[in-house]
């Protein structure tokens, strides 16, 4: 089986439009196993129970931002090595710095298109999708 058929991804964004755009891009890439979550806290609980390979996460969300979620994931052994890509409209130096400290895997600036997201994912998994 190819990578894209094996890769399990979770999309986390409080905005339905953004979720739809990301999952649409995943569809175009042929990634089959993905789920989408609106609430970062619920996503954390789900990831703890059943981890995925890669998380595509928005930055600004109510309750918990993307980096806070990443930090929580890194702290528990089951999810510590999960791949994490932040999708943000404002990739500020602050986010980059904090992200690197938390072993953030990649950063995608909004607006993005499918090739851009594909490149970002391929950079992380080190394989062609």
């Amino acid at each position: 089986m190819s990578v894209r058929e094996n890769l399990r991804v979770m999309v986390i964004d409080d905005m339905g439009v953004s979720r739809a755009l990301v999952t649409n891009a995943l569809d175009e890439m042929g990634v089959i196993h993905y789920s989408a979550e609106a609430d970062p806290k619920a996503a954390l609980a789900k990831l703890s129970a059943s981890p995925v390979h890669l998380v595509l996460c928005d930055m600004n969300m109510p309750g918990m931002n993307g980096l806070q979620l990443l930090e929580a994931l890194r702290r528990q052994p089951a999810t510590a090595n999960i791949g994490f890509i932040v999708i943000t409209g404002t990739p500020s130096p602050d986010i980059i710095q904090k992200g690197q400290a938390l072993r953030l895997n990649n950063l995608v600036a909004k607006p993005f298109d499918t090739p851009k997201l594909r490149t970002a994912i391929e950079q992380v998994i080190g394989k062609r999708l």
Partner: protein
Amino acid sequence: MAANDAFRDLFFEEAEDLLATLSDDLVRLSAGEFDNEIVHSIFRAVHSIKGSAGAFSLEELVDFAHRYETVLDGVRSDRLELTPDLFRVVQRSADHLAVLVEAARTEQETDRAVTETALAALDACLCAASATGADPMPTASETPEAGPAQEEPQFGFVPLSLDLDSLAQTGPQSFDICFRPHPSLYENGHEPALLLAQLAELGHLETEIDLSALPHWSAPEIVEQALSWKLRLATDATQDAIEEVFDFVDGLCDLTIQAEGNDMPETVVQNGAPIETATTKLAEPDAAPTATCIEAETAEPASAAKSVAAADTPRPTLRVDLDRIERLFNAVGELIINQSMIAQRVDDLQLHHDADMAVHVESYRLLARDIQEAVMAIRAQPVKPLFQRMSRIVREAADGTGKQAQLVMVGEGTEVDKTVIERLADPLTHMIRNSVDHGLEGPEQRCANGKDPVGTIWLSAAHRSGSVVITIRDDGGGLDREKVLGVAVKKGLVPAGADLSESEIDNLIFLPGFSTASATSLLSGRGVGLDVVRTAVQSLGGRVNIVSRPGKGTEFTIALPLTLAVLDGMLISVGNISMLVPISAVLETIRPLAGEVQAVGPDECLLSIRGRFVPVIDLAANLGVPRAVEADAPMLLLLVETEARGTCALLVDRVHDQRQVVIKGLESNYGHVPGVSAATVLGDGQIALILDPDAIVAQNHGAGLRAVIPS
């Protein structure tokens, strides 16, 4: 990305929700509630709109939201102080953002100059901050570089590659599963062997049965929960998949699933259910059947997620095509008619002696009403979004007239039929503008009168006995009755020297052609007067009233029916025709005594009632139908309240009873009939016209009333 239309609709729906949140937050801020969480929430709303708008190439919107967001970011990180001036800019920017979103939705051109002005105001705030502030503040000219329009990621982030193989756990994982069926599992027809077979499909399964609890074969009693299994499953499947196998026996067995490996126990603790407790329970011989380990493991995060969902996100909703609801609505209308027909038929056949039949007919009636109410509730929406739009109108109007005004909303959770809300938007906008423009005084004059320079407009909604009452009240100077009367006389709306009561003068402003032109400004003087408001409200089956107190302010009251689908009416007949008069218009029914009705002129009559004279209108003559009663039969009058001519008495042949009917429009099926607003189908299958008392009174041509005056 060529984002398709479905995403686009979703974007605008979400943007609308975000704008509503934004507006709420701003109200909370202006009420003096300063809390960092509110500022964060405002920031997030603007940020989310910007982020999504980028995907649809809405450049003007993105640019503006970006600048707005920069200012909000300054406030949230304490680089900018939220002064009253800044708050004003923040508020106006929220308004402008709403305008831009609306323009993008309708794909209309926006006034670029307005955006420039709004951007300049935001820039001014940023400049002021960088001039005084010790902290460096990104200025507007810098920000676009880091902005969303940029093509290539230049933020210098080095991607960190992931060792997918280690994460993918290439080798199958082992799970230790304890499974102890309750007797109820067998009672429900489940078979452990099948469950085990299903598990075996997931991977390699080792089973070990625990027979220790099994009594000796000679024991007379069957011991419950005698069998249990210890299973070890090596699989690629997730724990979820294993749990899924046991879905149907959830609560019918004790079950623990534990992944082998160093990390899982911690995960379980993380979820708030220490595994020890669960296993202890399992060891207890008489463990309560519900206290299963699987529940202990999953219940916690599930309930936590639920409470989070309740707090942060609105309740789940379903978006439905409006046409489908319309269809349901029509079907329910027919159902109600059908129900009343059957009830009437049962009555006619005298079947009501049959107790069973009576019970069924009654429950049918109740069911039909239940369905009707439920369907109506689908269309009901809170007036809040409409009211929020009004608060924008108030700010715009205040800016346009150089006045200071605030809007106070009361009862914005009141639910009203969707169509009513939609059709109310224009008249309400007009009245709000009118209140700011004509109602409130300028700040200097207000100060001189000892009032707060900031005028207040109250907008409230409430349910009152089957209707919705919306009031618009201002604390301005009230109507200048002398001027109003003067204008009306000048325009020939009332004869000079007419003796009018205060409320009659107040109501003159609703007359077509009345417009206090000398006082019209750019705002409300858009060629529409309040008569348009009255017409719009009347077309919704409502009425509008005005109460003015000099020096204290003016209050407009709009009373509307809850729905446009059903109507409470008084069933009357004229000639052989059944008709309904809306109950909202009916004051009373009377049989006048001799002498109470007086002839005036050749064919006019007046009813004298409690010291007042009320014109009598002959319905039969007006509708061109012959009367069905003898000329010397006692007169029967229905007193109705009309907008145009106050109280009038309608002469009818018979008054039957009050009933609720389903409104069937005539316009689409037949055509407009003067004096008739719609039709309905009665229980006996007859069609009854629904009268519009106002139209009848307005077109009244009295004819031969003298003949019917009781002597």
